[in-house]
């Protein structure tokens, strides 16, 4: 078998990038929650984390730092659950010391991403989500270049409501257009905070910017997710938020987004 035949993505039905020009807007959070939501609706899901300088996925799914094994078909992904329905690959698994800085310039990052795309034995997956770092640079170009040989369904863009963030996402939209990546929709994250003491809603990072941006650019608006300390806490501990807080409005927001996205993908 030559490497191209080993095509690790052959049995992957859908590939979705999670992008945002801006950092800290919740790309990794949304990636994690979408993956959990898809798995709860019976899909087999993978997450490829190409944020090489700041990988968050291992912690958010509490997989720690397991050994990555090699098999005939390539690297075996790390499974977040005993049923092996949620497969992960991240640079976090390849580092001895979690505090070690990956001080790499672009070409070295590109090389690892090339390996991530071609050498992970994902097996059969319904959806592969790709979590990305902020920006429009080496990681983004490399992951697209390598995924091109297969198929990319498109990108979900995450933004927070304020103009400083939507400004960066506008640039990311230009990136998608230039690189021919379909925009599957925009998610507005950290939209409004309801005080747990008096129920007053404060728009800490403003409100409505994501929806406005969707209108302005003719993109699908997938929905907004409120600022919810329980969500941060769940991700800190690697707890499944969707399982733990099914009554919260954040739960409804996330599952609606996941449902819309999944039905768009599978239609």
């Amino acid at each position: 078998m030559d490497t191209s035949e080993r095509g690790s993505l052959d049995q992957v039905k859908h590939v979705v990038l999670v992008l945002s020009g801006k950092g800290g807007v919740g790309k990794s959070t949304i990636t994690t929650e979408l993956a959990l939501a898809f798995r709860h609706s019976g899909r087999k899901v993978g997450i490829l984390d190409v944020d090489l300088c700041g990988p968050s996925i291992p912690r958010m799914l509490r997989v720690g730092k397991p050994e990555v094994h090699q098999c005939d078909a390539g690297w075996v992904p790390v499974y977040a659950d005993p049923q092996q329905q949620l497969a992960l690959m991240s640079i976090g698994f390849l580092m001895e010391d979690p505090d070690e800085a990956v001080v790499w310039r672009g070409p070295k990052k590109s090389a690892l991403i090339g390996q991530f795309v071609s050498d992970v034995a994902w097996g059969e997956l319904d959806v592969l989500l790709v979590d990305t770092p902020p920006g429009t640079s080496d990681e983004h170009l490399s992951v697209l270049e390598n995924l091109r040989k297969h198929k990319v369904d498109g990108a979900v863009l995450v933004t927070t409501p304020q103009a400083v963030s939507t400004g960066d996402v506008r640039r990311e939209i230009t990136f998608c257009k230039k690189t021919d990546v379909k925009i599957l929709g925009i998610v507005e994250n950290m939209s409004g905070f309801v005080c747990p003491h008096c129920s007053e809603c404060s728009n800490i990072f403003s409100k409505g910017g994501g929806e406005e941006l969707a209108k302005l650019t003719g993109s699908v608006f997938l929905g907004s997710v409120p600022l919810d300390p329980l969500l941060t806490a769940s991700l800190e501990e690697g707890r499944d938020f969707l399982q733990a807080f099914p009554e919260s409005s954040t739960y409804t927001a996330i599952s609606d987004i996941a449902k819309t996205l999944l039905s768009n993908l599978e239609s």
Partner: protein
Amino acid sequence: MADVPSDAPEHCPGTSSDQAGKTSACQGCPNQNTCASGAVKAPDPAIEEIRLKMTSVKHKILVLSGKGGVGKSTFSAHLSHALASDDSTEVALLDVDICGPSIPKMMGLEGEQVHQSGSGWSPVYVEDNLAVMSIGFLLSSPDDAVIWRGPKKNGMIKQFLRDVDWGEVDYLIVDTPPGTSDEHLSIVQYLSSAGIDGAVIITTPQEVSLQDVRKEIRFCEKVKLPIIGVIENMSGFVCPKCKNTSQIFPPTTGGAQRMCEELNLPLLGRVPLDPRIGKSCDEGKSFLTEVPDSPAAMAYQSIIRKIKDYCSHSSIKGSVTVDLE
């Protein structure tokens, strides 16, 4: 020779890289022989040119964080405003976030363009004593994406340092993107002979952010960049109605305080979440003059005093050596 000559292919690793002339991209490039000979790998002459340029700049401060969205640009902008509130202090703010420049918007300079003058690019002035430079001033529309690989970003940073007509400056504040990659290596490398006073590290209280910030601190150690201190931003939110505090980004592992104790670094202060900060940034105004008596503004002021104090005692020597590739 530039880092990426205009006739080089897309994947050019940069002429000053260890891989110059040797990668698969170099096959067929007209410069391959020169690059492979190592002739261009000699120390970049720009480092010396930048040292000369920077002799008119007294203090240089980098604002860093491994994590995005923690408030690096917000802090850089407000540090610059605060320093420039003293008319006799000349301040320059340089934005090296090439793919996600926030400084033009935060400084109320969106749509401004740089001008070419006899002595180089002129920065854009907010006030007489506050000069700003960002790639945002070189783009024709706010939708323009800078889809560049590392070497091209490095070339831009070199130009910002070497070719901008900064004049006499008391403080040069450098806002950076998240991570520990090209932009960070380049700014440290290019300023290596000029010398940097130190870095201010920004984090938010939760572990997802701290785990990336620890990497950034490792980076500083590796490149021997002194750390002025750490700021914990978005530290608690006081409900405007009932005045109760919520930890929206909870310090599940002890926050910046514990990290600073463990790594023996000064914690410069904590800045709470305040919706008026985001609003001021979106409107390009200084939160410090908009709401000067707020707890967040007072926290900023106290942190800025500590930074000024640090700089007045620091004697920078151009001693940073970087040999990472």
